[in-house]
Structure formats: C-alpha cells, structure tokens
C-alpha cells in the first residue's frame, strides 16, 4: 500500500491550471524526485502536500489518513526551502531546537537531539553560530537538520540546492541521499536539474504543464523515454523524424513517404549540395509494434553514436550514416558535434581527447547500434524549408 498517495489532484489559479489530474503513489522510505522545467507544477504539488496550498480538487492521503484539508502545522512534515529559511535571530542550535520545543521535549532531550542532528549533517560544534556566520551550504545543512530533528513522516525538499555553487551542490546532494538512506525517511525532492534527480532518486517523476509526463527509475527515464517531452528534456536526445515501415521494422526517414530519386553523379562540395544529395533512407531500431506509416521519432542519445572519418568500416547490425559536420561545441568533458545527415541534424558527443580530429565542414561517417534507437509514435512533424527541398537518396550513392 502507498505511504503517500495523491489522487486526481488539481490546482487552479483563476483560469490557469497549475496542476492537472495528478495521481501519484509513493512507497514509504523512497526518494522521489519531481523533475521538470519552471512552471510545470512540481513546486505546487509539493506545497499542496506540505499544506501551504489548498488543492482545487482531488485528495492527499498519508498512511491512509486524508490530510487534504489538514493545516500545515499538523501534518508532521519537514521541509527544506530553496532560500534557506533559517530564523536569523536564532543560532543553528536554536533553529534545530525550534520544532523540538513545540513538541515539548525536555531541555536535555532537546540538547541531545540537536547534537545528534548537527553530527548527522556534518556540523558538529557549530551550533552556536548564527545563520549569517554560515556559508550557503552550511545553512542548508542546518535547515536539513532542523527539518529532520522533529522526525517527520515525510521530508519535502523544494529545490534546496539551487542557490548553491556547483561543487557544494554536488557534495550536499550526496549528503542528502546518504542521510535519507540512513534514516529511511520518505522524501520528495523538487528540482529542475536532471543530473540531481537522476543521480540520487529511487524514482523520477517528469512533469510538464501541470501533468505527469513519465515516471520511473532514473535508468528507465533516461534510456527509455516514452514521450517526446521526456526524451528532449532528459539529457540530449537526437530525434529522427520518419514513418514506420511495418514490413521491414525500420523507420523510413524523412517527412514524406516518397520514393528516393536517382543519386547524382557528382560528389558534394557544399552543405547545400550535401543535404540535397546524400541522406539515409532507413534506420534500424528497437523492435516495436506499430501500424504501417505511423509518424514516428527515432530517438538515439549523442553518446550512443560513434563518429569515424570517411571510409571507416561500419560494424554489422548497426545503422551506418554519412554526414557533414556543421558545428563543434566544447562542453568540458565532451565535445559535441552537430552533423547534418540528409534532412536532419544529429548531435554526437565525443571525448574531448578526440576533438582535434573533427571540424566544421568535414564529411564523416557515423554509426549506432539499432537497439540504441527507440521508436516513439508522434503526430506528423511540421514541414521545414530543408525538408521541402530535399529529395531522398540511397546511402551508397556516396561511393
């Protein structure tokens, strides 16, 4: 049975539906991330669970009890906010003890619990400091300790790492996960940072426009996105538009199902030449059962594609393509090539060490395993100028 259950939850602000028909079952002791762009409704859901917003419709159940209309101060939930929220007139120890005083714990018990919490978050001996004397990361640790001190039934974290710099964020998110696993506390974590969500969650809920787009383990979300939004939001994803060929179980690439014309006699000299003359006709994909002619997207991650210089061999059971490098972007650990393949672009991530071998305007070959290409049925893509002017050719016309 779910520990925390949201049933048909709605929230409207005037005519704007911030949350639409959200259903969620959260098991006890799990770490769940609500992930999505700004304005998708993730924080609104968190605030409704905390009791700071009243749902327009639906219900929230905690351990079988309906808490939909219960005041926030009686829900027994700990919350950590983006903006630290420490009481500035109290020391770290006093902040942590605030909730304990309200529970009428004895002074000795309070002191012991405060010491325990400070040790848990790695701030032993710093209880007498005021918030202004702590760094951002330290303040968030105190905020976390304060939320955990009252032994809440659920821990709610509203983008607690957003205001911190990258290194501190990395360190603290691992701390949060360690503490959550140690205490086995049910945790709901709101973030727009997919790396955060994927790295520390038991389950990720991807949200868009007030609805749940997809939910699953981080691996499922990343490797097998079920919707175009999740595919494009999580990591970088190449999307190859085409139509499903049910007979050959392949994607027929392009925006129309026309027969490919004869290849030209000359080799391409410009991007325009190339885009008109050379394109991949079919792409092998994972097995899927769709009607003939269904508009689809072939989804393949940039890191799944291998790029080689022209005339390199393509291993069997792989999609071999030819393309023109149109840009090269240095991203630190990887370099991203944007390659024009026929009428669509593919992004390919390579280790930075290989950067020197590839440059804009270079013709390359690329290949990726068929099972790395997922198929997503969609509405037909809109026509683009390139699509309208580009005929389709066989790959071996490159010769």
């Amino acid at each position, binding site marked *: 049975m779910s520990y925390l259950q949201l049933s048909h939850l709605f929230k409207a602000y005037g005519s704007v539906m911030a949350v639409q028909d959200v259903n969620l079952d959260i098991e006890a002791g799990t770490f769940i991330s609500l992930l999505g762009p700004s304005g998708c409704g993730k924080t609104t859901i968190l605030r409704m669970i*905390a009791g700071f917003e009243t749902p327009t419709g639906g219900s929230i159940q905690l351990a079988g009890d309906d808490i939909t209309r219960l005041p926030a*101060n009686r829900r027994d939930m700990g919350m950590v*906010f983006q*903006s630290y*929220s*420490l*009481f500035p007139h109290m020391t770290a120890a006093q902040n942590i003890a605030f909730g304990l005083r309200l529970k009428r714990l004895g002074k000795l018990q309070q002191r012991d619990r405060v010491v325990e919490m400070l040790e848990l978050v790695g701030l032993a001996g710093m209880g007498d400091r005021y918030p*202004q004397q702590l760094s951002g990361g330290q303040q968030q640790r105190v*905020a976390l300790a*304060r939320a955990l001190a009252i032994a809440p039934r659920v821990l709610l974290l509203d983008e607690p790492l957003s205001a911190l710099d990258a290194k501190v964020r990395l360190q603290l998110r691992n701390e949060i996960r360690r503490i959550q696993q140690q205490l086995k506390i049910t945790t709901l974590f709101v973030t727009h940072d997919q790396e955060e969500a994927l790295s520390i969650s038991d389950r990720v809920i991807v949200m868009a426009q007030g609805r749940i787009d997809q939910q699953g383990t981080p691996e499922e979300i990343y490797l097998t996105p079920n919707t175009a939004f999740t595919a494009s939001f999580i990591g970088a994803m190449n999307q190859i538009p085409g139509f499903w060929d049910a007979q050959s179980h392949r994607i027929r690439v392009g925006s129309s199902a026309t027969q490919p014309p004869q290849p030209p006699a000359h080799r391409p000299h410009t991007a325009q030449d190339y885009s008109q003359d050379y394109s991949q006709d079919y792409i092998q994909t994972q097995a899927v059962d769709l009607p003939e002619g269904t508009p689809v997207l072939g989804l393949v991650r940039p890191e799944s594609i291998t790029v080689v210089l022209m005339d390199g061999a393509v291993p069997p059971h792989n999609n071999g393509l030819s393309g023109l490098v149109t840009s090269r972007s240095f991203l630190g650990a990887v370099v991203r090539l944007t390659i024009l393949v026929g009428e669509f672009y593919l992004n390919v991530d390579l280790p930075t060490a290989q950067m020197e071998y590839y440059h804009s305007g270079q013709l390359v070959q690329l290949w990726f395993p068929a099972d790395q290409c997922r198929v997503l049925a969609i509405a037909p893509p809109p026509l683009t100028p390139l699509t309208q002017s580009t005929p389709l050719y066989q790959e071996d016309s490159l010769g």
Partner: protein
Amino acid sequence: MEQNSSPKNPLKTAQKKSLKNSQETDRKKFWSWVWLLGGTAYFTIPLIASFDFSLRAEKNVLGFKAYASVFQDPNFWGSFTFSLGAAIATIFLSWLLIVPTTYWVQLRLPKLRPWMELVTLLPFVIPAVVLVFGLIRTYSTTLLNTRQGGWVLLTAGYVVLSFPYMYRAIDTGMRAIDVRTLTEAAQSLGASWPLIVVRVIFPNLKVALLNGAFLTFAIVMGEFTIASLLAQPAFGPYMTLLSSSKVYEPAAIALISFALTWGAIGIVQVLGDQVQRGKPKPLADPR
C-alpha cells in the same frame, strides 16, 4: 597661442582639465556648506534664543531658576507621568494592532497594501480636532461617563495618530525579512499563527518596533488637541497652561520638550546601532 591647447601638449591639456574639475568641486563644496550652515542656523538660532531667554528668570543673572521652578512644580511631574503612561500604552497597543495586520497583509493580502497605506496616512489629512470631536460625539454617553473613559479615548486617539509612523517603520522592517518563507518554515515545524508572530516575526522586527515606538513617544508627549478637548491632564495641555501664566518657564519647558523629542530619536539611533553591533558578524572564512 595654440601651443597650450594643441595635441602636442596633452599634458598641459590634462592639467588644465584637472584644475577646472577641482575648482568645480570646490565650488560645489562651498555651496554645500553654505546651505548646511544656513539650515542649521535657521533651526538653532531660535533655540539658542529661547535657551538664553530661559536663563534670565532672575534679573541680571544667568541661571536655571526657570528650570528649577518647572521641575519643582508637582503639575509638571503629574502631567509628565500621565503622558508617559499614555505613550507606553499607545506603543503597546499600536504594536499589537499594526504588527499582526501588516504581517497578514504582507503574507496573504498584498493587494490591500495600498489601502493600508492610505488608511495610515489619514491622520495626516484629518485634523486631530476632527478626530476628537468624533470620539466625543460617539462615546459621550458611554465611555466618557466612566472614570477611565477619558483616558481610554485619549489612548485610542493616540493610537490613530501613531499610525503613519508605526506602520511605516514596521512595514519597512517586514520587507527586509522573507516573511513568507519564515512563516512556512515555522508552520512546517508545528508552530501556530500566534506563536509564529510572537517567536519568529516580532524578534526580527526589533529595530523597526523601536523606531516606531520612539517616534510615537515623541508625538504623544507633545500632543495637545486631543488631551485638551478630552480634559485630560497630559503634558501638552500643561505646557500650554504654563505659557499663559508664566514668562520664563514656557521657554524652559519648550526646550525640555525639544530635548525629550530629540532624546527619543537619539535613543532610536543608539539602539539601532547597538542591535546592529550585537548582530553576529560574518566569519572571515566560514568553512
């Protein structure tokens, strides 16, 4: 002579420009001092004259006889303590009324803020005499028939008079803290609304509360109209009565009143500085 301004003499051109800028700055400084000294003279010369006059109660001798006379007058202490009591009551009532109201408007009803500002500015627009006449007409058969009724109405009138100062001080103080997040943090820890106001909001408004308090104190101590029309033995009517019957003592008491007002404002400054100094300074290198 083109030599001085030609491109071949950039140094001379730069020097000339620097001299011009320096002269401009000196001119601005001169006029700043002129206005500052003029303004200071405008306010201090009458005070000095009053002080001088107050020292001449004894013929051909400069002394504090007028002051001694004032301080030995039992009516002075009676009216002073009466107004002091009214001021303290006014301050606490204002805090109790304005802090929760401002807090609620900030938190839940931000659209009402302009109306709050309008209402709290009304004492500037509506004369005190109109206010007190309204109070008398409304409560003539009820409160004013009781022993303490006049004092209650007086304090209520003072609370209204203190609105502009107390509200502005508290509103400014609240805007400096993240009221919403602090409230929600306290709620998530189990705090009720009264507890949040008392243990989270009030402590973070110390300087704002003191600012409002001492401004209110200064207003109440010098107030005449309401106290006079309600026939209350306050400090304001005492000062007016003294000025109609004595010569040198009114000057002395005027200066005492000024000293009270400036002293109150000075205490606001000192307390504000002390609260700032008392705040823990950020560590040079927090781990």
